[in-house]
């Protein structure tokens, strides 16, 4: 098999994927966009809501901003300093942090919620548009990585695609 060619991002119609499975099987990676951290409020985990130019043709700005803002809210909830976090911290301290062998921390619970939310977003919004959000925890909480895929098996989309398909047919 030859190398999987991929075209640079073009202004042609975005490929249509109906679900994540279809994306995996029939798409090839075109590009990656990295949403960086926003440190304007300190070291708390926040991501920039600036809409990257690479996604302009792929997804609506409002959808993207909603996703990022929701993620920011989740992280703020996880890192919130308040009554519950104090209670958890003091309890952990008195038990020499052995309590964490039996129960998971609040942060871990929120991370599970985030993972579920991202998967839901991918399935409902991003995958049909040929995009894939990678959970920031897998990138060390540095970036939100959004992968842009091109449909390599669709026939009528563009000449570039057909050349891709012809090259892969070898």
């Amino acid at each position, binding site marked *: 098999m030859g190398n999987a060619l991929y075209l640079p991002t073009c202004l042609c119609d975005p490929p249509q994927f109906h679900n994540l499975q279809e994306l995996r099987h029939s798409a090839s990676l075109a590009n990656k966009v990295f949403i960086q951290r926003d*440190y304007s409020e300190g070291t708390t985990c926040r991501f920039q809501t600036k809409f990257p130019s690479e996604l302009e043709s792929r997804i609506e700005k409002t959808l993207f901003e909603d996703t990022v803002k929701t993620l920011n809210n989740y992280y703020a909830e996880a890192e919130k300093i308040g009554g519950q976090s104090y209670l958890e911290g003091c309890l952990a301290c008195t038990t020499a942090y052995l309590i964490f062998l039996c129960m998971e921390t609040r942060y871990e619970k929120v991370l599970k919620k985030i993972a579920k939310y991202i998967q839901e977003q991918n399935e409902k919004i991003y995958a049909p548009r040929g995009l894939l959000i990678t959970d920031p925890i897998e990138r060390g909480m*540095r970036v939100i990585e959004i992968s842009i895929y091109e449909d390599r098996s669709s026939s009528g989309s563009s000449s570039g695609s057909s050349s891709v398909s012809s090259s892969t047919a070898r």
Partner: protein
Amino acid sequence: MKNCEYQQIDPRALSVSPSSAENHIGKRSQRPRRKWEVFPGKNRFFCDGRLILARQNGVLPMTLVLIVVTCGLFFAFDCPFLVEHLTVFIPVIGGVLFVFVIISLLRTSFTDPGILPRATPDEAADIEKQIDTSGSSSYRPPPRTKEVLINQQVVKLKYCFTCKTFRPPRTSHCSLCDNCVERFDHHCPWVGNCVGKRNYRFFYSFIVSLSFLTSFIFGCVITHITLRFHTYLIASNLTTNEDIKGSWSSKRAGEEYGNPYSYNSIITNCCATLCGPMPPSLIDRRGWLPLEEMIPTASTSEMELPTFVAKNDAHMCTQSTKGMLGRVVRSLDFHELCPPGTPKTTPMGPEGSSSVALSAQPSASVSCAPPPTLQSVVTPCPHFSRINKRDSLHSTNPAFRLASPSPSLSRAGFVLEDAPEVSFVPLP
């Protein structure tokens, strides 16, 4: 091509970034590997990646040994005594503190301090692309800092060449561990790990609990020493000797019970021992020795002592001797009756008591000699060692007496017979 050197990139494989490079190596190692096995930093992993430690952790075993040995000695030697004399909670508290210290130490050492994973190649490329596009077109190395506004304050973010990313604020790269660590405090050799965002609280609880444990053990040891020894002895009015022998121990069977010297009050015992009257020294270190050092104690037995002398014990001896000496002194005032160096042979008479004494004394330096009775009585009394003038008075050298002619002896014997009369009643 038979062997496919490159696999088609699977979207899902992109999320497994550190091992993506491993996929290119080939299909030789089919065993699925964990990320820690290919971790790029200088760390050691235990329990299949559950525990992480810095590679240079030589001091951690020493820290553990120090704590364990010190506490072991404390439990072995101090606790039995303190449990008996104070309370059973001493080892309980010590044990709880010890457990807390060890757990905190292990948590600090084996917890990921907040290591930032290194950037994936795509991220690094993207950052470089951003830097290039923002700056001039000519090639230049990526700028080392990026300025951001944090709470209306400008903070510079540094670019880490090892991790290929701009470090978040308060993140620093540890050269010993070769990792960027979030909220980096320091690399502690005693715990064998960096101290950062994730294990700072364990580190703090370790040092605080260790301080408490150290103070507790120190206090117990001081209490042990103090209780064991002299404060206890003072409070119970005992000597170390008595304590060791258990002379007044109530555990001993028999009639011996309790310390008869105790005032039965700790304060009184303390006051009596520490603030009681200071007795004088009895050994008279600066006193003068007598000239004739050899004062024979056997002379009393050789001489024929009158019953007067035999009856007196040393106590009365001194008093009577003093009295006699006083009279001799007074009699010496009449020394014109006793010419120096006068012949010894003089008739015994009532007035001749002093002259008789003189006759017994060959020494020319002395005008009047005391009666032999005085000498015989004076001999056992050391009181007269101070009297210089009267040194010759009690020169009762047997050799001397033997050397004297017999008349003196006879006279002495004669005088001895009269001694009681001389001592008490002046001869008419």
